[in-house]
């Protein structure tokens, strides 16, 4: 963890990883005993196919009901040993399907037939939960046409360079993926966003427009990139109305790989960052429990440590080593309990550190007063809640240790709920 320097006049600044060092091959994690996959739908009743004891093949679509679009793609061959409701972040109800692996992989053949028609429907049906988790839905939304696809090579957070690694290692797959996306969507304008220092490593190898961004955190955050490209930020209606769609590098590589090999990719690249800060790259099946990965790299986890999916600024802390890595998990960060910073319920003392570090010029000191009082719409109307690009730097420097970033996420979530409820009423 980076501490404040003795001379506090200078602002702390972070830089993204540039993946310029020698490339080490990831450690391939063998298929674990069980994998857990999430179907992002509430468990109500299931079709006859999805029940405990049913055999599944690698690459098979798992759906709650026949004909559902929302599915999970099995990353192993075996039998289903548990189906349980799962409560995800922000109260979303999902279904967790646990598969016990058996013997060697038997590939499912359904996709091999469907890949003859590389349409958006095929992508949505088979690849929406592939590694990298591409969100295909907005591309099919005719009310809000997308004109630019941004392949988001920047890293979601500091310390992580999984995306850049993919550009380096799987340029072919990325190019194939871009080709498929062009064909399926008809969108010509595909942009790859990359930190400016490493543009020369990639330009010419990849078949899309390169957009260099500053390698200083948080200039490669999706919202910051959106602002750089369009000069605007989304309001409470969300990103869909902006005509720009973000896709992760890994998702593009997975799409390319799927269409060139004829089978759905089941492995995902994930960086494991241990307590000393050493980074290990691994390739593991989607759904592998975190504990398996940590054991592979000899990371000791004790009581009151913290395991984080993602990076130190914007990740999510998880509560159990048994939770699986999802298709969107780029990194696993382990923190020792001695270095975990605690938040407090102190009031803001108006020191202004947050205002000076905010890359979006949000008056954080005033905004947080409204958010603490639950006045979310006032915060949005008067104090630029929607200019926040969600980098977390304000909480990082907060002298009172207020969880400002959490307040901001909560406020956006609550306003989003009000807005969608109003839209429902109008219909």
């Amino acid at each position, binding site marked *: 963890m980076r501490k404040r320097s003795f*001379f*506090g006049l200078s602002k702390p600044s972070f830089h993204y990883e540039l993946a310029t060092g020698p490339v080490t091959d990831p450690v391939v994690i063998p298929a674990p005993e069980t994998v857990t996959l999430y179907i992002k739908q509430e468990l109500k009743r299931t079709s006859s196919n999805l029940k405990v004891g049913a055999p599944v093949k690698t690459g098979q679509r798992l759906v709650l009901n026949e004909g559902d679009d929302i599915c999970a793609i099995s990353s192993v061959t075996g039998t289903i040993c548990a189906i349980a409701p799962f409560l995800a972040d922000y109260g979303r109800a999902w279904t967790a399907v646990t598969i016990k692996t058996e013997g060697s992989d038997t590939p499912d053949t359904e996709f091999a037939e469907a890949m003859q028609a590389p349409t958006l429907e095929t992508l949505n049906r088979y690849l929406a939960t592939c590694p990298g988790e591409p969100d295909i839905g907005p591309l099919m939304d005719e009310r809000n046409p997308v004109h630019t696809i941004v392949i988001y090579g920047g890293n979601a957070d500091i310390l992580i360079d999984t995306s850049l690694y993919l550009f380096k290692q799987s340029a072919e797959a990325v190019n194939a993926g871009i080709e498929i996306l062009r064909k399926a969507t008809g969108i010509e304008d595909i942009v790859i966003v990359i930190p400016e220092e490493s543009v020369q490593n990639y330009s010419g190898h990849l078949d899309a427009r390169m957009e260099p961004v500053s390698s200083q955190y948080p200039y490669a955050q999706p919202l910051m990139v959106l602002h750089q490209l369009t000069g605007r930020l989304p309001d409470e209606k969300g990103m869909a109305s902006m005509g720009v769609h973000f896709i992760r590098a890994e998702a593009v590589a997975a799409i390319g790989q799927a269409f060139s090999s004829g089978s759905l990719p089941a492995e995902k690249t994930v960086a494991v960052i241990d307590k000393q800060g050493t980074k290990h790259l691994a390739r593991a099946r989607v759904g592998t429990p975190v504990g398996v990965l940590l054991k592979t790299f000899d990371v000791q986890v004790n009581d*009151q440590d913290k395991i984080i999916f993602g990076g130190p600024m914007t990740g999510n802390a998880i509560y*159990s080593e048994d939770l699986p890595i999802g298709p969107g998990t780029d990194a696993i960060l382990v923190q020792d309990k001695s270095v*975990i910073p605690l938040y407090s319920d102190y*009031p803001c003392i*108006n020191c202004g*550190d947050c205002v000076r570090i905010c890359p979006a010029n949000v008056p954080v000191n005033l905004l947080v007063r409204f958010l603490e009082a639950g006045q979310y719409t006032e915060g949005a109307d008067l104090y*630029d809640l929607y200019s926040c690009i969600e980098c977390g730097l304000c909480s990082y420097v907060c*002298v009172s240790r207020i969880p400002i970033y959490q307040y901001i996420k909560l406020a956006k979530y609550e306003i989003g709920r009000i807005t969608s409820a109003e839209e429902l009423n109008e219909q």
Partner: protein
Amino acid sequence: MNSKKTLIVSHAPFWHDGSGIPERSYHTMIAALPAACVGIAYYGAPALGVISLAMASAILWELLLNYASKRPITVGNGNAALIGLLIAMVLPASAPWWLVLIGTFLAIVIGMQIFGGIGANPFNPVALAIAILMVSYKSHLDFDAALVNFSIDFPSSTNPLAALKAFGPAAVEHLTPVDLFMGRQVGGIGSSCGLALTLGGVYLILRGIIRWEISIAFIAGVFISAMLFNMVDPIHYAPPAFHLLTGYTLIGAFFLATESSSSPVNFIPMLVYGALGGVMTVLIRNIGAYVDGVIFAILLINLINPLVDKIRPKAIGKVA
């Protein structure tokens, strides 16, 4: 999915730069200590007594209020101790015990706790308390009267600002800036030694605890406005260096005007706020009725703080 290990779960970010309110308070106290030590060296045990009583009583007032209002105990953050120290530094060494108790009561209870504690005070608690004391107990805050029984070996045995007010610049001509800067002048316990205060201020600025914009703008405001007065009429108005090095100017610039919750945070507002404080100080000293204007000037700029802080850069991505 039950793990035997209990993991800690919290919201991002998972890093923190390690700053905190106690660190801020204690480092501000460290920065203020040299000036307080100079006061103790000049005035001896009475000064030490005032400082100790002020710090102790400030902490006790806050503790009492914490209990009375059934709020978490906040004395550990050092803010009350800091306020006590600053109050002692602007009081004369002869301040009686009851004056100190009233002063810290006004600062902690009236100035801060009834507004909701740290971070919620609209005025600098120290400036508010001293202003009330100055108006209520004139003779105790009048350094000439208060320090009459002290035998001090300074170039002038009267308060330079009071002498200036009464007799004009000619009466203070013999005071050299070096003497004033070294603290060889009649004044508060910790507010007369410019060298020690500047050292403390530079330390706080380098550590990023106070905003340099406010201090520099305050000093510039005092200097420029005093210079203008002096240029127009040198017979009636003292030179700028004199205003800069006497009274509460430097403790105001580095320790009082920069109190975080009553000062602005954006760049231009900080400059406006500081400069206005400096100008008001000189206006009160040169034209107003009071001997020293720093305390009232700081209360005035505290008042305009919410207004000037509305001048801020436009947030990104705003269409309207």
